[in-house]
């Protein structure tokens, strides 16, 4: 470390603490002074939104956990009690339940932002990989949480998802029994899912800390995908980005509140209002919307093992994106071809999601196969090939150049 800078804090207590444990300097460096490219747009607010969603989920989840009973005979009614008897229990539960959806929504946009502007490329590969890890942990958290209310959908989701592991040759059945702690989804399963659902969010917090630490080494990417060249290219995080993020958060919060207060069950399945019954499966069983594209991939493939591999592969392939894309240009703004294939990829993913909500019959299966082919083709063929053959458009000289050019133009009087 270099020599100590002059004291940053006037408050003597803060200074005393900071000289011994530089927490305040650290927060100041990372959340006040942090130089952010001046051209970042609102897509850059979704990381902050996701962070606050995580904290909100933990806060409401802790309150729910104080009322919830992880036992097959009591779980369902303890959730009903939260809805009817606990003070504001209905509010905490609807915030938590719909919060999972809002959290995934924010993270999907965050992830797509990274793809569109090439934020996963050198030097941010590890940052991206940590992000995909968070996404995986979120999926595990949401799945275990969905099991807790112990309705019909909870029970059958637990059964179907754990049974995915039975596709593993030789040891599959043993693994599934290990996950269940028995010969079917039952009390030991519910109990351990509750523990995991309680634990994983805190693991996510830890990975988010690493994610942000890895971000603050090279700094944020930006819509032009070019490097910061001078101080003129950046603005301090506070107040410029904090106020921008706050506005984004308010708009996001309004949408969230509309769902919580006016359509709290819109994203729910009515079957989950029926207590779990191990002897009968609901007629139409589908996962939560945020899992639908992967579910469609699973059903598109008529072989058990290959279907499960494709399902997990659909997520795992994101880990490899930094190494599949060889193009030196980050932002799709300057990639005239890749940009359209990427938009088509979004359409494809949404289409897969829609197909996932449909029954497993023709013509949906055929469509799901085509969409699955594009999904993997995009990563494994289009991305590597375009990285070599595409001719990118010329990049601007610097981030500030286009901004300051317009600003210094003499104003009409």
């Amino acid at each position, binding site marked *: 470390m270099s020599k100590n800078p002059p004291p940053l804090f006037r408050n003597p207590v803060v200074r005393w603490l900071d000289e011994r444990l530089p927490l305040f300097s650290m927060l100041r460096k990372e959340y006040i002074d942090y130089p952010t490219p001046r051209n970042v747009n609102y897509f850059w607010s979704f990381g902050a939104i996701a962070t606050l969603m995580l904290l909100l989920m933990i*806060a*409401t989840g802790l309150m729910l956990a104080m009322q919830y009973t992880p036992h097959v005979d009591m779980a369902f009614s303890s959730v009903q*009690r939260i809805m009817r*008897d*606990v*003070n*504001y229990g209905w*509010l905490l539960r609807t915030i938590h339940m719909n919060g999972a959806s809002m959290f995934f929504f924010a993270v999907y946009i965050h992830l797509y932002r990274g793809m569109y502007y090439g934020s996963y490329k050198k030097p941010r590969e590890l940052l991206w990989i940590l992000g995909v890890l968070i996404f995986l942990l979120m999926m595990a958290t949401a799945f275990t949480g969905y099991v807790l209310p112990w309705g019909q959908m909870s029970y059958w989701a637990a059964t179907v998802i754990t049974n995915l592991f039975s596709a593993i040759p030789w040891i599959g059945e043993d693994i599934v029994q290990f996950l269940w702690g028995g010969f079917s989804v039952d009390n030991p399963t519910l109990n351990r899912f509750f523990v995991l659902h309680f634990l994983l969010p805190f693991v996510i917090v830890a990975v988010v800390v690493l994610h942000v630490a890895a971000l603050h080494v090279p700094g944020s990417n930006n819509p032009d995908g070019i490097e910061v060249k001078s101080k003129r290219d950046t603005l301090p995080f506070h*107040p410029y980005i904090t*106020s921008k993020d706050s506005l984004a958060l308010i708009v996001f919060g309004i949408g969230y509140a509309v769902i919580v207060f006016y359509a709290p069950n819109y994203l729910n399945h009515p079957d989950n209002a029926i207590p779990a019954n191990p002897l009968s499966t609901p007629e139409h069983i589908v996962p939560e919307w945020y899992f639908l594209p992967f579910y469609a991939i699973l059903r598109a493939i008529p072989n058990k093992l290959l279907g499960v591999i494709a399902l997990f592969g659909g997520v795992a392939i994101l880990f490899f994106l930094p190494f599949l894309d060889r193009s030196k240009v980050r932002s799709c703004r300057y990639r005239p071809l890749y940009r359209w294939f990427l938009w088509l990829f979004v359409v494809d993913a949404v289409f897969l999601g829609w197909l996932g909500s449909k029954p497993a019959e023709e013509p949906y299966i055929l469509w799901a196969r085509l969409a699955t082919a594009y999904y993997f083709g995009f990563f494994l063929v289009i991305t590597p090939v375009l990285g070599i053959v595409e001719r990118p458009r010329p990049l601007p000289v610097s981030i500030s150049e286009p901004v300051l050019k317009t600003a210094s133009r003499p104003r009409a009087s």
Partner: protein
Amino acid sequence: MPASSKPLPFPPAERRDFLGLLAASTGAVGAAALAWPMLDSMNPAKDVLALASIEVDLSPMEVGQSITVKWRGKPVFIRYRSEEEIQQAERTDWQSLRDPQSDAERVKNSAFIVVVGICTHLGCVPLGQKDTSERGAYGGWFCPCHGSYYDGSGRARQGPAPKNLVVPPYDFIDDTTIRIG
């Protein structure tokens, strides 16, 4: 604006400070609006409050008998006092007690003394509900945890207990039935 002065990049500081404070206080109100439901969810829920009153039929009790009923998770002692016990409780020189209360203030019907069976020292359940149990020198209840003595009116007489045993809110709804809570 005079040509010599540099244009200010921001509005004057006072206005910014005001806006900053306004934004921060709006955030604080929002946080409080979320914190309140979260904290209130830990208060007793409706189903807990619904169990907060019970009815007890006293008609099967005999003179000298004590029963213990559960009210809000706590023991409530009911004792059908003999004439002698009533006399003793009423004759006590209550003004000199550490928590001065007359027996009349503590009963609705002098035959029945109804108290919460929790020692006012640190919360143990005193002995004295069984005929055979230790009642201490004052004939009421005796707390074994740290040696508090209560008399037949449930008043603290000796030992560390600072207060008399609490009389729960109750009413006679007919001659032989009380509703506690």
